[in-house]
């Protein structure tokens, strides 16, 4: 078995959005939409500030409400790595999954189906890293298998403080942020 995850080092990320453009070209994401995005959180008052910059996307949750609510089975968990995917042909565009995702990670593709990050499974299956990971100029993103304790992602999570987004939503995200 495998359990894919992404580990992103917020200390290195500069918020340049290269990951966003790379995703757009790699996956032909239409104009006006993106599957990944940048969030910035600033704490404090000038000039004593802390800023965390995060490259966000679908968290490929282990408890994905988007899959649970899908009436057609279009949203599903892929047998490989627990990746959450949408089968375009099965999707009726009811938008339940969009409303169910606490991260607003999905959108309706102009062709009528729910779309979102696929963890670039088409690349992963060829032994390549996801497009966003492989372009990031700061090398702050890592992708791999959490079930393998020797993988880079496992080692990073074991060695550095990290958090996920909205753990209180109970979705068990698989995109982790090193702090």
């Amino acid at each position, binding site marked *: 078995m495998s359990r894919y995850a992404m580990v992103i080092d917020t200390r290195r990320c500069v918020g*340049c*959005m*290269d990951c966003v453009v790379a995703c757009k*070209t790699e996956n032909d994401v239409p*104009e006006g939409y993106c599957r990944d995005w940048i969030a910035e959180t*600033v704490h404090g008052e000038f000039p004593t500030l802390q800023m965390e910059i995060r490259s966000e996307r679908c968290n490929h949750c282990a408890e994905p409400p988007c899959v649970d609510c899908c009436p057609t089975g279009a949203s599903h968990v892929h047998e490989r790595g627990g990746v959450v995917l949408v089968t375009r042909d099965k999707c009726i565009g009811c938008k339940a999954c969009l409303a169910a995702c606490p991260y607003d990670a999905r959108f309706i593709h102009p062709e009528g189906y729910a779309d979102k990050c696929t963890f670039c499974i088409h690349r992963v299956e060829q032994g390549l890293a996801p497009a966003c990971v492989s372009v990031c100029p*700061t090398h702050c993103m890592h992708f791999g298998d959490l079930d393998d304790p020797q993988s880079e992602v496992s080692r990073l999570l074991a060695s550095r403080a990290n958090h996920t987004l909205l753990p209180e939503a109970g979705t068990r995200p698989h995109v982790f942020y090193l702090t």
Partner: protein
Amino acid sequence: MPDLSRRRFLRISAASVLAAGLAGRATSAFAGWSEGSAAAKGGVRTVPTFCDICFWKCGAIAHVRDGKLWKIEGNPEDPLSRGRLCPRGTGGVGAHSDPDRLRTPLIRVSERGQDKWKSVTWEEALEYLASRMAKIKADYGPESMALFSHGIGGTFLRHLMKAYGTPNIAAPSFAQCRGPRDVGFRLTFGDDIGSPERTDIANTECLVLIGSHLGENMHNTQVQEFAEAVGRGATIIVADPRFSVAASKAKHYLPIKPGTDLALLLAWMQVIVTEKLYDADYVAKYGFGFDAFAASLTGYTPEWAFTETGIDPETIRTTAREMAKHRPATLVHPGRHTNWYGDDTQRSRAVALLNALLGSWGRKGGFYQPSSMDVPAYPCPDYPKPARPKLDNPGKRYPFAHEGLTTGIREATITGKPYPIKGWMVYATNLISALPNEAETIRAIQALDLLVVVDVAPSEIAGWADVVLPESVYLERYDELNPELFRDPFIALRQPVVDAPDDQKPNWWIAKRLAEKLGLDTYFPWSNIESYLDTRLKGAGYSLAELKRRGIVRGPRQPLYFEDGASAEFETPSRKIEFYSTQLEKAGFDPVPRYTPPEGGPAGSFRLLFGRAPMHTFGRTQTNRLLSDLMDENAVWLNATAALRLGLKTGDYVRLKNQDGAVSERVQVKATQRIRPDCVYLVHGFGHTAKGLRRAYRKGASDSGLITRYKTDPLMGGTGMNVNFVTLEPVEGA
């Protein structure tokens, strides 16, 4: 005065052994492309080339799927990109598919500046242009044509214009960009910082950024090395009135009052000198005039600097000591766009001197010694000697300007002195927004007989042109080779990946055709660009075929640091690092930097600062749909407390009005803790006023439009642009 433009770089000849060592380095993960150019894999063709969305020129590999440009990745062989592009490079796809591009040559049919054109054939356009240029030559002499050109694409037009006989050639990259820094460092070390900068961020233990907003300034290799430094836990010190992305990575963030950096630098040096923390051996061995310099620092205590900069004296001391602790692997970054306040060369000189104290020039983690590969020029006849000298800097008014001054040519065009300028050729620079004070630029244009603009988009400057020539974008053309001076020497090739969508032509073709029409064919003796490139490459021991396949060839790394045998010569009058500059003294300037406070603005106004957003290059990417999707208008950064006072909140629309009454397009407020309350900040490049730039038209505010004032650096003629002040006026009903 020694000729500052004489430079000695270590040049290596292209030994044939070097290619062999590297050929095997193509990593297996990228087997698809390393098979060679046009390597096809599942209907996907890959073509190596190099990027042109900015001037860093990263090696790239374009992927073409079913005949359509699909994506662009970094070329892992390339030492600049190291296999990864910046967002703009990745988004280069959108430059090719941009629906707002120019399509055919245009000739103006109404008043200048009215954007009224007729489409013509290239033959008509070039014929017309050649006749107008011939007339200017006949009536006024060839020196009366000037060329403004930015970037490697301008090579052949520069060649043409020199052959035509004009010495008046300039780019905004000097007097509006890095000029002060280059002069400041030349005066001190006798050498340039160069582009790509010779900063050894990869190995630094302490990086000091004064304004340099790496991470927003997206010059690829530097950002990659910066992230490595952060990852390594190097000490980062950032002085910026704005809490930049870089500041968010810093151990010490110094929220400096704009325009007072020289005070901070002097105080740092004062601490380092009085506490004897400097590299005494290095200074003794390489330094000139140290004692006079040290004496000049006496009054510049941290307590004094506090009153100027607002930075707490203890922080100044702590950071100075921290820098000294890590020396010589401490890098005080020289910055790049350094035309800020008109005293910029002296500030840059202070940066150079601080580095000299820390012994970082020529040392690991400081400044390395770059090298490049020798690629012999294509044999051409000598250029005619202009009858009149270049006029951008008459009488060496700015004695240390070693490159052409755009604003000098502009001024001469307006005054007609020392001789008239009657024609401008403008290549890949939007002078309307790149030069300060748009009104002056327009006045100069109105004095011209001919304005020809070679551009890819219907930019503001194209809007004023008599003749507009549409160039193909970098993905559709060959350009000059790039044998860059860098840490690792290499030669890179730009080659066409896809066809131009309409009747756009590459600059080499335009230059060669125009040369033929001007009777200057002897300067273009090659039949086509491939034979030109192949001849040059053969001279270097390579071939075009090889470069087409690999995109890049690399030479062996040369010694980078003094201790490894890199040359420790300084091309200054004393042949040493000049702590005290006799050149400056002779020219009537301060031989050691001296602080004068910046002038303030009208009460209740904010100083207008500007900079970069990572996904845009100046004003040239706003119509790129991939990139404008990430950011399609800018916002004015306003301190949150100030915003509260003004009753403004994030998302409100305002107009900015400067001290001279110039008013911007409407722009959103970003009320944020991330900036001082005495200034506001705009990302440069927005607020386009050219209607043809449909996606960008009137989106956001243009900093350029608000820069009606500038302060000229007396040493080198740079235009300090951070000297404008604005107020914010709410937009009704928005």
